[in-house]
Every structure is written in structure tokens, then in C-alpha cells.
């Protein structure tokens, strides 16, 4: 399928986006105060300027760096905890009250301690993102393990898979993978929100979130809006990439859309 044909199939979607942009531009011109609503064209030229200076690239890398630290840690911690809780009832009973005490605390409330513990470093930002992402991963992993079909476990046992570790690794874990993938996806969504908030606290002079704050103070709202849109676009791309990886590689054995 060539691109032209692909675009034609998406006529309605493209018309919708174009209309929204036109309305935005018209409203911005009517208001005519850049501080209240920068026009589409001014945002586009701000975007081009930022790309040419290489600013945007550096900011995006900085933010993604925090994001990878936070999400990576959340995956490394969340999946084992969720697994143990989902499989061993006593661990569930011991750990669940602690998790339920910590989980309702909004991740941003951790920022002060993050800075005290890790200083104004990327690890402080990563920690806040970790807090935001880890609970969806724990809970979905837990649910995935809890819902392992009994008949699959028993099939495994009859086929010689009797040790707990083998049952977890060879049966419960693959069976829980779709739920784990959902947990990671939700966790990444929450984590990305935390990136912006964590950066407001000046852990670096680069970063998409920090620049929103920075240009806001200088009243350059066209640049602020540019950074907001870039934050949205990157989140969208991360989500699409993850879905693609999950559907094409990780969970190819499942029919239809997974997450």
C-alpha cells in the first residue's frame, strides 16, 4: 500500500485534525495575545527554531533518560513483587497491606524525599517516575499470575512440570504476560506524567518538563506550547512502539489486539 492510498483511507481523521488546527489558528488570531494563546503558525516556527538549534533533541534525550531509569527500575522491581504476591498466598498477605498503604500516595508527593535522598540528579527524577510506574506493574503482574488457568497448571504437572519454580517460569509467567504487558503500558503512561513534574524541580537545566517552566518564566508561551505538544507526541510514539513490539514479537501467540 503506497502512502497516497493510506492517506485516502484516513480522510476523515485527517480532515478532523486539519479543522482543529484551522480553528486554533483563527481563535488565536482573534484573541491576538500571544501570552494567552499562541497561534499554530507561531508554534510551528518555534518548533523549527528549537529543532535547528538542537535544543529539542537534547531536552528530549534528557527526559527520556529519566524515563528509562524510572521505568526500567519499575519493571525490575514490579514484576518480581507481583509474581511473588500472585503466586504465594502468604507473601500476598504479608506484602499487600504495605503496598496498599504506599500506593495511594501521589507520586509527586515523593519529590522532596527524592531530592533529599538522591540530590538534584537524574536519579531523583527517575525515582519519582519509578514510584508512579511500579504500582500498575505490580498489580497487573499480580492479577496475571492469580488468573493463571488451573487447567494449564494441571496440564503442566501431568506433563512432568511439578516444581514450583518450573511452574512459575514455564506456565504461570507466560500465561501472565499479556497482563504484565498491560501493566507496563499503564505504568509508562503514569511515568511520563511524572517526568514533567519531576523536572519542575530543576534536577537539570535540560529536559522537556524543565523547559516548560523555564520558558513560562520568560513568557514565551509559543515555546511552552511547543514543548507540551512534543511531550504528547513522544508519549504517543512510545506507546505505539511498545504496542508494536508486544503484538509483533512478545505476544505473537495471542489473537487480536492485546493491549
Amino acid at each position, binding site marked *: 500500500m503506497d502512502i497516497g492510498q493510506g492517506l485516502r483511507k484516513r480522510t476523515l481523521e485527517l480532515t478532523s485534525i486539519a479543522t482543529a488546527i484551522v480553528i486554533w489558528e483563527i481563535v488565536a488570531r482573534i484573541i491576538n495575545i500571544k501570552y494567552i494563546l499562541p497561534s499554530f503558525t507561531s508554534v510551528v516556527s518555534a518548533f523549527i527554531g528549537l529543532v535547528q538549534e538542537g535544543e529539542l533533541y537534547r531536552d528530549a534525550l534528557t527526559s527520556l533518560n529519566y524515563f528509562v531509569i524510572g521505568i526500567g527500575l519499575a519493571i525490575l522491581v514490579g514484576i518480581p513483587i507481583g509474581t511473588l504476591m500472585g503466586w504465594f498466598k502468604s507473601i500476598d498477605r504479608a506484602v499487600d497491606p504495605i503496598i496498599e498503604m504506599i500506593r495511594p500516595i501521589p507520586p509527586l508527593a515523593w519529590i522532596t524525599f527524592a531530592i533529599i535522598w538522591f540530590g538534584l540528579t537524574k536519579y531523583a527524577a527517575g525515582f519519582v517516575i519509578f514510584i508512579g510506574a511500579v504500582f500498575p506493574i505490580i498489580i497487573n503482574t499480580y492479577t496475571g499470575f492469580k488468573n493463571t488457568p488451573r*487447567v494449564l497448571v*494441571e*496440564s503442566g*504437572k*501431568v*506433563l*512432568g*512440570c*511439578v516444581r514450583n519454580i518450573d511452574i512459575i517460569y514455564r506456565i504461570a509467567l507466560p500465561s501472565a504476560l499479556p497482563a504484565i504487558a498491560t501493566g507496563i503500558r499503564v505504568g509508562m503512561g503514569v511515568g511520563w506524567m511524572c517526568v514533567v513534574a519531576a523536572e519542575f524541580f530543576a534536577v537539570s537545566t535540560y529536559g522537556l518538563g524543565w523547559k516548560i517552566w523555564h520558558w513560562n518564566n520568560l513568557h514565551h508561551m509559543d515555546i511552552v506550547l511547543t514543548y507540551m505538544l512534543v511531550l504528547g507526541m513522544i508519549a504517543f510514539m512510545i506507546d505505539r512502539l511498545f504496542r508494536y513490539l508486544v503484538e509483533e514479537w512478545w505476544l*505473537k501467540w495471542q489473537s487480536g489486539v492485546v493491549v
Partner: protein
Amino acid sequence: MLSIKNINKTYHSEEGDEVLALSDINLEMKNKEFVCFIGPSGCGKTTLLRIIAGLETPDSGTITIHGEPIKGPGPDRGMVFQEYSLFPWRTVLKNITFSLEMKKVPKGQREDIARQHLELVGLSKFADSYPHELSGGMKQRVAIARALVNDPNVLLMDEPFGAVDAQTRNRLQQELLKIWERDKKTLLFITHSVDEAVYLADRVVVFTSRPGRIKEIFKIDLPRPRDRTSVDANMYRESLLSSLGAEIKNAID
């Protein structure tokens, strides 16, 4: 060879009620015999099969195979479940190699063995398909191949063809008989269908409604291949139905 002695099993509900599922079950099975269990729903026949498989333990009594008591699941017993039980994340071939992996059979060798068994159930073309791509009947054929790959002495089947349509079911029964005649496993097969029991079994064990006891054992003395509509087959069906009918009436009352 398979010897069931004085098996009793009681279930305890959370409210503290006790349900006697199996009461004083005694049965001797010969080597390479094909035995069907039939009985009203909830009569404990599945429980007995699960005890033989090692998935549950009886309150009292023993089951031995060649004199060896059963202590848990083991490779001498294969099982095909009523529900679809293939691992959805493994291809058909990898489902069949699963038990060989557990036994640490080298990769090339286990795939060869698996392919032979896939051919046995006529699904060689589907080696690399995933279970969700198969029909219900095909899934159960793969499950049979997967259970046979360990070369068990006893094959336990819990209403394996319950969920497939009538035509497929007839074909699967024929294929099962072919495999059984070739491999000569001792086969224990649960069914709700009198027709299926008369077509397949050497002996049919009728269970009473709860608590499950063995009510009657019918020896089906018909040469194979059997004619489903012969006068003799009909006679067996009739006596089985009347024996079973009384129990189903009890279960409903």
C-alpha cells in the same frame, strides 16, 4: 495392572459441610484395557480420574500401577482434559515437546519424537501454528499427541470430546481407537455418552449418583471395528441406559 482399592474421598466446603464424593471404589484394570466411566454429573468420576492422575489425594485407599503406589503426577500416566488445555503461547509442536523438555531430551531428538506424534493425529501441517488457530477437535488431537509423547502406560481422558460437534466426535473416536490399537495403552475414558462408551470400551463402569459408587460393570463383547447401529450395540446401549437412567433420576430427585 492398574489397581484401585477402597478409595474414599470427601470434600469439605467452606461452610464446613462435608460432601462424600467417592465411596469405597474398587476396580482392577488389565493391561491395555479400554475402560469407560459413565455416570450422572457430579458422581465423582472426574475426581477418581484426578486421583489416578495424581492431581488429588484420596482420604483413604490406594491406587497402584504395576504394584507401584501413586504419589503424585508422573510420566507413566498421561492425561487429556475436558477443557482445552494446550499452552496458548507455544506452537503445536512446542506443546508436544513440553514434557520432553522437562525430561531434558535433547532438542533435535524431542522435535523428531513430537513430529512423529503429530503425524499420528494427522496434524503435521500445523506444527508451527498456535492453538488459537486450531478448531476444537484439532486442539484435542494435539492434546492427545502431547499426552502420548511421554509414552505413558495409562492414558486418562476426561470427556475429551465433550465440546466438539457430533461429526468430529465420531471421527475422533475412530482415530483414538486406531491409536489405542497401535500403541495399546491402558485407557481410562470418562464420557456422558452411552453411544461413545459402547463404541469405544472393553468395559463400561457405571457410577451411582453422589456419593459415587461403582454400580455395575458392563463388558462390551463386540468385535472391532464396531458397527454403531448394529443390533448388538443397541442391546448394550439399552441396558446401559436403563442402568444409568435410574441413577440420573436419583441425582435429579
